[in-house]
Every structure is written in structure tokens, then in C-alpha cells.
């Protein structure tokens, strides 16, 4: 009988959290085996074609798939062994893990430490007809368009206005589909307003206080019915809309994928802010089961940057526990990662998650009585999230520190930053060659435009992952103003041609002339379009109608 293989660290799941853990543990000398059930590593990163938020250390402003490539390179240079198409079936015996490789071969393995990075599972939403072909999870549609390059349909209804729903709606448009609408059961948009802004400028309506009532069709979806909801989330009779649609995408959040953790005997608790039941963990990311660490969406649904940093933290914790890092060094590294994680969880969007994470740490130490302290923090922090049902008015935008004053606008080209929610993101600061944009002291603070330093050069436009920066040139000519904005659709408009200028909600405002299409390489596929229009539209027009490719 062949001797059973024993590894120092088994990392399960090769998404950002698992890669982060494997990379860091290897860096300090731990022998790591990273397994994933798919035939490619990277988890969901390779289908993320948008530019990520975050700060420099998170490679903010880089597209998700490029971050994925970067991580794979890092894993490779650290000598991480990756076994793909490898499913963990469970633990057969004490400490013995059974793996199923390529559906055909069973392997048994021992591991001194385990990092579970099993990610999240998309939540379901049931409605009559949700079993019809054409109804699918938003993540499934994203795989089709961005990995397989096949459209799931041509007229799509998105259910859910969280960041995932908004981003995938945008990507469906980029892939050439029509998104007939986004329905949101809550009374306001739940994702970032900048993501909502992208799809709204493209003319996609967002129906808040609405849900899908039914999908109808014979062999697949042919039409969908949406209905308005009252304050108690009950359908309001008579307020219904029927759309012709061939596809419904469900994007109503994720649950931590806790099956393996549960099997391993980790203690779970319910944290609705983080997606539901999840394993408790301490500040080393160790679960209640000694030697089993968790990271990423499994330890609470967040986003890729936090997952990566939690993974890295779990990796150094494992290395320290195996004696590869001395305690002083470990304490310093750990503090750095917590600092980064706390920054990502700063601001009103991260507030609830941040509190829930604190509760997890306390419960894992069985310090139940300190819950009261948490309640105090909750009350003290005055970071209330401002909710929006739709894109706010111009007047509201003008109140924020990124919007130039009227007098400055009249002086000539100037950036106009329409980023009005405190989200963890700052690539615009580094992009500006004149240091005219500041975000401080926290990465979640709003960008402040120093309008006297700004020369209106426009390199910030493509740097903004939220596509919320525009350049306004009031003095383009004696009659016309010029407006520059980011544009990521095909085909591109032709210089000298005409287009329909639209406002922030995608409503047509006026005919405009295309004066520049800037596709320079360091804009990384975000074209910057400049249009000329009547001066009176300087605060209104923010994009153009997409050009239909009928060829």
C-alpha cells in the first residue's frame, strides 16, 4: 500500500482568497497544495472584466482578469502546487481528506493545516416560471458572456440591484445584449451608485420597489411580468408591467459556501450582513476547529479585495503557526493586513460588514458580554448610508467636493467628479499629474477636486473604475462646449459624426458632434469620447446613446 501523502497546508478553493493564502504561506516556506474543483484557477476573477475598486496595494483600477493573471504568476513564482478538477469529498477519517480527481480517481491526503476558501453560492429567488430555461443566475450569464463569449439571450431582465446585478447588467450591454430593466425589491438601489450610473446612462431603467412576478414561455422564457411592491414588500395589485424578454438573471446576493466547513465541524453563526450562516473565526482567520482556517466569501460575503487580503492573512497565520514566521514579525504583518481590511470595510457601505466582523471575532473568543460594546460602536459611528432610488439631481451632485464651481467651469476645461458615495477606491488620485484630486485621510473619503490645480487634461477619466469622472470644457468654441466621458461599447462613434447626447439617466438631451475618440493604450480599453454640444447642456449631457451595430 502506497504511503498516504501528507502536506503542510491544503488550501481548498483557488479564487482570490485561496490564492492569497497559498501565495503567502509559500512565501514563508510552507509546502502548499492548492486544490480547486474547476479546470482553471482564479475562481470568479477571470470573468470580471471591469476595473476594480481599491487602493494601490490592491491594484485598483486594474481589470479583474488581469488581477487574476497577476495572482497566478505570483503563485507560480512562489512554487504553489495547484491541483485542478479536484473536488474535496469530505473527511474520510480523522484528519484524512478524500479528494476526487477528474471525477475518476479518489485520493486520500493528510494535511497539517487547512485553509477553506470555498467562496459563496448565489442565492436563489423563486417565482412562477423560474424553472424555465432562460432563467439563470447572474453569475451563470456572466460566465457565458465573458468566458464563453456566447450571449445567453438578447433581451434580459436583471433581478437585483446590488453591485453584482449592476456590474453584470453593464457587462451584458457590453456583450451586445439589451437589458430591459433591473428590478429591485428594496426601496433604493443597493449597489454603488456609480455602477448604477453606468447602466442608467446606457438607458437601462431601474425599478426600485419592484419584483419579478412571473416568467412565461413554452420551451424557454418569452415574457416576464414585474410588479410593484408596497412598503411591506407585498405586491400592489394592478401595478404590473409585462416585457418581452428571453432571459432573466437572478442576482439577489450570495451565501457563504459552508458545506465543507460544516463537515469539518466548524462552529457557525448567522450574520445576515455577511450573507447568512458562516463559520466563526478569530483574528488569525482560524475557525473554531484548530488548524482549520477560513477566508474570503466563506467567512462573510464581501468582495475580491477583502477576500484576497483575508486569504493572505490566513496564509501568514498558517506559516506562523508552523513556525515559519517568528512572533514579532507575524504581529507586524498581521497588523498590516488588518489595517488594509479595516480600510476596505470603512465608509457607510462597509459599516455593517465591519460591525459583523467584529462580532465574529468576539463570538469566537466567547466574549458574548462584550456585545454591548459593539452596540455602542454602532451608535457612535455616524456613518449613515445615504440611499438613492435613482440618479440624484444635478443640484445634489453640485454639493459634493468633486464637482467644480460654476465660475471654474466657465474658465475652461475642468474635471467633474460625480463620485458621491464613500467607497474604498482611489486610483484617480494617482492618475492626476497635477495632484488636483485628493482623497484623505481614508480611502473611503470622497474625492476632493482642487479646481485651480486641475487643467482638465482628462487622464483621470479612464482611471476611475466607477466611470464617474467627466471633463467639461465650456470654452471649446464660441458657441459650443465640449464634454468628455468614458465609453466601453462597440462600435465606437466616428469622429465628426453625430450622436444623441444623453443625461445621467440615459434620456436623450440633444444631438451632439463627436470631436474626439481617445483610445490610448494606458486607458486600458476605456475609450474617452469628447462631444461638442450647446453650452447650456454642460451640466446635463454625460454620455451618448449606444450605437446599434446592425451589420
Amino acid at each position, binding site marked *: 500500500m502506497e504511503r498516504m501523502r501528507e502536506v503542510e497546508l491544503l488550501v481548498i478553493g483557488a479564487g482570490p482568497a485561496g490564492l492569497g493564502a497559498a501565495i503567502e504561506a509559500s512565501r514563508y516556506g510552507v509546502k502548499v497544495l492548492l486544490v480547486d474543483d474547476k479546470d482553471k484557477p482564479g475562481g470568479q476573477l477571470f470573468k470580471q472584466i471591469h476595473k476594480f475598486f481599491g487602493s494601490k496595494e490592491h491594484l485598483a483600477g486594474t481589470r479583474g482578469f488581469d488581477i487574476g493573471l497577476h495572482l497566478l504568476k505570483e503563485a507560480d513564482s512562489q512554487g504553489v502546487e495547484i491541483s485542478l478538477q479536484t473536488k*474535496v469529498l469530505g473527511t474520510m477519517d480523522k484528519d484524512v481528506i478524500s479528494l476526487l480527481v477528474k471525477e475518476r480517481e479518489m485520493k486520500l491526503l493528510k494535511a497539517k493545516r487547512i485553509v477553506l476558501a470555498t467562496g459563496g453560492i448565489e442565492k436563489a429567488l423563486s417565482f412562477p416560471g423560474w424553472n424555465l430555461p432562460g432563467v439563470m443566475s447572474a453569475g451563470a450569464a456572466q460566465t457565458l458572456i465573458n468566458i464563453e463569449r456566447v450571449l445567453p439571450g438578447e433581451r434580459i431582465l436583471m433581478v437585483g440591484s446590488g453591485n453584482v446585478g449592476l456590474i453584470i447588467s453593464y457587462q451584458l450591454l457590453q456583450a451586445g445584449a439589451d437589458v430591459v430593466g433591473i428590478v429591485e425589491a428594496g426601496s433604493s438601489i443597493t449597489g454603488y451608485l456609480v455602477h448604477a450610473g453606468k447602466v442608467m446612462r446606457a438607458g437601462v431603467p431601474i425599478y426600485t420597489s419592484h419584483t419579478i412576478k412571473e416568467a412565461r414561455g413554452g420551451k424557454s422564457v418569452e415574457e416576464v411580468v414585474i410588479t410593484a411592491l408596497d412598503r411591506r414588500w407585498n405586491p400592489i395589485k394592478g401595478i404590473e408591467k409585462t416585457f418581452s424578454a428571453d432571459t432573466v438573471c437572478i442576482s439577489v446576493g450570495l451565501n457563504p459556501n459552508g458545506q465543507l466547513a*460544516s463537515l469539518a465541524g466548524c462552529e457557525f453563526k448567522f450574520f445576515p450582513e455577511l450573507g447568512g*450562516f458562516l463559520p466563526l473565526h478569530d483574528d488569525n482567520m482560524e475557525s473554531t476547529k484548530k488548524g482549520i482556517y477560513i477566508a474570503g466569501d466563506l467567512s462573510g460575503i464581501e468582495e475580491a479585495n477583502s477576500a484576497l487580503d483575508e486569504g493572505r492573512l490566513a496564509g501568514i497565520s498558517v506559516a506562523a503557526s508552523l513556525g515559519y514566521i517568528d512572533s514579532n514579525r507575524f504581529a507586524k504583518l498581521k497588523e498590516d493586513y488588518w489595517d488594509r481590511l479595516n480600510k476596505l470595510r470603512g465608509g457607510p457601505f462597509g459599516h455593517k460588514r465591519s460591525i459583523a466582523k467584529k462580532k465574529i471575532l468576539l463570538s469566537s473568543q466567547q466574549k458574548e458580554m462584550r456585545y454591548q460594546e459593539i452596540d455602542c460602536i454602532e451608535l457612535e459611528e455616524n456613518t449613515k448610508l445615504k440611499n438613492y432610488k435613482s440618479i440624484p439631481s444635478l443640484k445634489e451632485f453640485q454639493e459634493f467636493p468633486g464637482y467644480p464651481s460654476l465660475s471654474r467651469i466657465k474658465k475652461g476645461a475642468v474635471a467633474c467628479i460625480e463620485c458621491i458615495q464613500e467607497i474604498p477606491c482611489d486610483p484617480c488620485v494617482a492618475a492626476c499629474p497635477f495632484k488636483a484630486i485628493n482623497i484623505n485621510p481614508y480611502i473611503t473619503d470622497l474625492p476632493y477636486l482642487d479646481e485651480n490645480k486641475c487643467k482638465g487634461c482628462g487622464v483621470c477619466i479612464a482611471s476611475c473604475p466607477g466611470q464617474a469622472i467627466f471633463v467639461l470644457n465650456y470654452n471649446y468654441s464660441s458657441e459650443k462646449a465640449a464634454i468628455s466621458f468614458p465609453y466601453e461599447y462597440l462600435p465606437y462613434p466616428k469622429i465628426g459624426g453625430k450622436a444623441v447626447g444623453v443625461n445621467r439617466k440615459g434620456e436623450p438631451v440633444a444631438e451632439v458632434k463627436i470631436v474626439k475618440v481617445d483610445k490610448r493604450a494606458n486607458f486600458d480599453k476605456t475609450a474617452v469620447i469628447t462631444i461638442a454640444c450647446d453650452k447650456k447642456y454642460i451640466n446635463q449631457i454625460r454620455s451618448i446613446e449606444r450605437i446599434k451595430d446592425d451589420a
Partner: protein
Amino acid sequence: MPKDNEKNSIKKIICRCEEITEEEIREAIREGYTTIKSIKRRTRAGMGLCQGRTCSTLIRDIIAEMTGDKKEDILPDSVRPPLYPVELSVLGKKVNKE
């Protein structure tokens, strides 16, 4: 398996694998099966190939709505290996070898 009302209840399936309808889940709850585990045993919801990965949160919502129980008190069903379907021949091969 309750057959009454089947025509209407076809309209809203909760467990996609076993095709268990919302009405069947509600009927089981009315009969007193108020945990995810007991509903699974009563109706087969969550017993299919996906092992409740899709429907268990939906069932939790229905239980919470009908019984007034808090969602955090409605525990997921216990997990048993193997986590993924494995052909018996593959399992058998290993057992023989070791």
C-alpha cells in the same frame, strides 16, 4: 406526496431537483414539519442531486414566514460526505485498494 392542487402548484417550484412545489412545502409545515431537515424527509425537497444547495434558503424563508421563527434559528440541514456525487464504481475502486 400530496397530489391535490397539483395543477396550480406546478406554477411555483421550490426544490428544482425533486420538483417540490411551494404548496407542498407549506402543507408539510402545516403538518408540523418545521425544520429544513424534517421538511426534506417529508417532501424530498433538498434531497436531489444538488443536495439542497439551491432551495434550502428558500425553504428557510417559508418556514420563517409561516412559523414566525427567526431565520437564524432555522438551521441548515447537516452536511454529509461525499459533498459531490461520485460514481459508485469510483468509490468502490478506492475501498478495494486500501
